[in-house]
């Protein structure tokens, strides 16, 4: 009996001594951590995708708390809602960042871009890209082995078996940029989502001269500069035989879509063209001059309406 009592007392004594030592050690070596880091981390979506450029949500939270001005930070997954919440926690004013979305800038479907050879190596875009130019005459376009789809953590992409191109499911895309980094040919771009998800972009990255590009792919940008001349807002620049639309300058007037001879410029989520552009609810941003020009162009545009509708559905 006494052995049991001694044992219990001895253990209790050791426990108490150890607790006292631990208490003082903990006091001495205490690491101060800003409690706001935990709060901010709590507010973030915990996707740990790295889309913000930091190693996971914790790393992003630390950077946010440390920063004096968080207006340049953006969580692409949470978007404006999360950022304003974080801003409130940290006492910063937040201007809503424009939401972005990934866009595949290649329309080289099996039909548009015939195969000239067959690749039978390891099924990885990076490996194919390091070996040669790809299965078609276009050395810039999609290689079709789906490395971007593998990289997507949000199930927002799939490979369309018919076209051989990746498709982005807009509603699921959080614009983390994993696919952009995964693509060895840099055909995926994060672009402004636009009002009502309406976007206009050049669906081609081919820098070859017009004739070469056209021979390789029916819908390649041939660098003809028609769109550049047509654009009333100087949003389009042609460099290295390739047009690029600056989404910050583009007012979605769709005039470039009409003049493009190879249908390389795509419009997404617009209503059918028969509806006059002036009636477009987004037209409030369009300058009056442009609206007038558009009305004049409208009859010309009509035959194109069906084409562009098809493209839209292809790309969606």
């Amino acid at each position, binding site marked *: 009996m006494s052995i049991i009592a001694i044992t219990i007392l001895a253990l209790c004594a050791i426990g108490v001594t150890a607790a006292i030592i631990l208490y003082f050690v903990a006091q001495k070596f205490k690491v101060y951590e800003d409690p706001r880091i935990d709060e901010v981390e709590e507010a973030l979506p915990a996707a740990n995708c790295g889309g913000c450029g930091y190693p996971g949500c914790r790393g992003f939270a630390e950077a946010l708390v440390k920063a004096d001005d968080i207006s340049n930070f953006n969580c692409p997954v949470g978007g404006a809602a999360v950022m304003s919440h974080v801003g409130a926690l940290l006492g910063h004013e937040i201007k809503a960042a424009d939401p972005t979305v990934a866009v595949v800038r290649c329309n080289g479907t099996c039909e548009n871009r015939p195969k000239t050879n067959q690749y039978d190596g390891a099924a990885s875009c990076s490996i194919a890209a*390091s070996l040669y130019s790809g299965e078609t005459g276009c*050395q810039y376009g999609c290689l079709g082995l789906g490395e971007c789809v593998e990289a997507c953590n949000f199930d927002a992409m799939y490979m369309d078996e018919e076209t051989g191109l990746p498709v982005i499911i807009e509603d699921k895309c959080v614009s983390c940029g994993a696919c952009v980094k995964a693509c060895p040919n840099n055909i995926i771009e994060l672009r402004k989502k636009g009002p009502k998800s309406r976007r206009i972009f050049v669906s081609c990255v081919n820098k070859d001269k017009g004739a070469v590009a056209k021979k390789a792919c029916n819908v390649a940008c041939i660098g003809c500069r028609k769109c550049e001349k047509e654009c009333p807002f100087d949003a389009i620049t042609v460099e290295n035989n390739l047009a690029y639309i600056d989404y910050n300058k583009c007012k979605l007037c769709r005039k470039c879509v009409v003049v493009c001879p190879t249908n390389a410029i795509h419009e997404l989520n617009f209503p059918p063209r028969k509806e006059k552009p002036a009636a477009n609810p987004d037209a409030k941003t369009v300058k009056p001059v442009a609206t007038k020009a558009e009305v004049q162009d409208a009859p010309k545009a009509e035959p194109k309406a069906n084409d562009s509708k098809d493209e839209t559905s292809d790309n969606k």
Partner: protein
Amino acid sequence: MLKTFSIGGIHPAENKLSAESAIQVLPIPQMVSIPISQHIGAPATPIVKKGDEVKVGQLIAKSSGFVSANIHSSVSGTVFKVDEIMDASGFRRTSVIINVEGDEWLEHIDRSEELVKEISASKEEIIKRVGDAGIVGLGGATFPAHVKLSVPPGKTAEVLIINAVECEPYLTSDHRIMLEKGDEVLVGTQILMKALEVNKAIIGIENNKPDAIAHLTKLAANYNGIEICPLKTQYPQGGEKQLISATIKREVPSGALPIEVGAVVQNVGTAYAVYEAVQKNKPLIERVATITGKSLKNPSNWMFRIGTPVKDIIEAAGGMPEDTGKIVGGGPMMGKALSSIDVPLTKGSSGLLLLPREETARKATKACIRCGKCVSVCPMGLEPYLLMVCADKKDYERLEKDAVMDCIECGSCSYTCPANRPLLDYIRLGKGKVGQIMRARK
């Protein structure tokens, strides 16, 4: 017992179908396209423009740095255009396209067959002429030869090793050069010895070419300091480090160049090109390539002008067989499949292999069974199965630590893998990424 390198290696079926076929001269095509980048290093700068008249041997693109090479016209005629055309890997590269008119050579080029044994040029003159002639390593790596001959300060070359191994299956162009141009090769070797200031050269030849060994041994008796070294047939003995290990039993440290152990390695075809450049003033405008394949009518060796379209040499060898599934530029182990036959033959074209469809089909990849065969055949002592996984998982730190940069891309691992894993494909990818990271760090 015959010498060979210390670790790893395989012995694939040799298939030297064209070994008995003497070198023939391929007719000059009507049009040649000469890419300005046919070597490792900076592309040359074109110095001709549309409409210019050029003669055979005339400089058309100038070397644009120390590691770069001059490009000469291989034909006489008019420059049709300087434009981007497709190369063997499908990318568009600047090339000079020349319409052929006659065959008019520059006057200072000695076209006689007469052997010039006397080496009158000094060390500096030799290196300059080799550089001017645009000679690159003709084994297939196309590293500019004059760079290798310029021994960096503080280092000394002790021995010149001539790579006459031709360890790739199917290829026989070096074999034929040794048999038909033996004396020229040996004079070329002496020129290289003079440039490097060494008094010993070893010519390494695998014993699957007994006639070449016998022929060169007989001729070498007339030349000072050249030793013929028969080697056991083993792939990849033609790798620089493997050849050094096999012939002089020295190991080049990881990340170092052969000069670190006092050796300089040059290909036997390069030795012949050096002879022509220094003794005959002839720049590198033609070379020998093997065209071969089991279904091909006439596997043979051809001396072609640089820039000749691939389809011309296929025609010359009896046309493309019906069952061709893949056309490989180079040998079956390290060669690369061509994406089109409209591309030109270049300085690095050592062979063209037309493989029948059933031989090219990749078998389905299965899981690694941990047999360790890839580790035992790797001539660099690496662990290919592990490197493949690291490359797939993008663990570049681990790849660098495990010496992925030492990989010589010989393909022995992929060849031997019983689970058909694309080991080399992934390792090459990882190697490229690690190389980028290492360059960025500098």
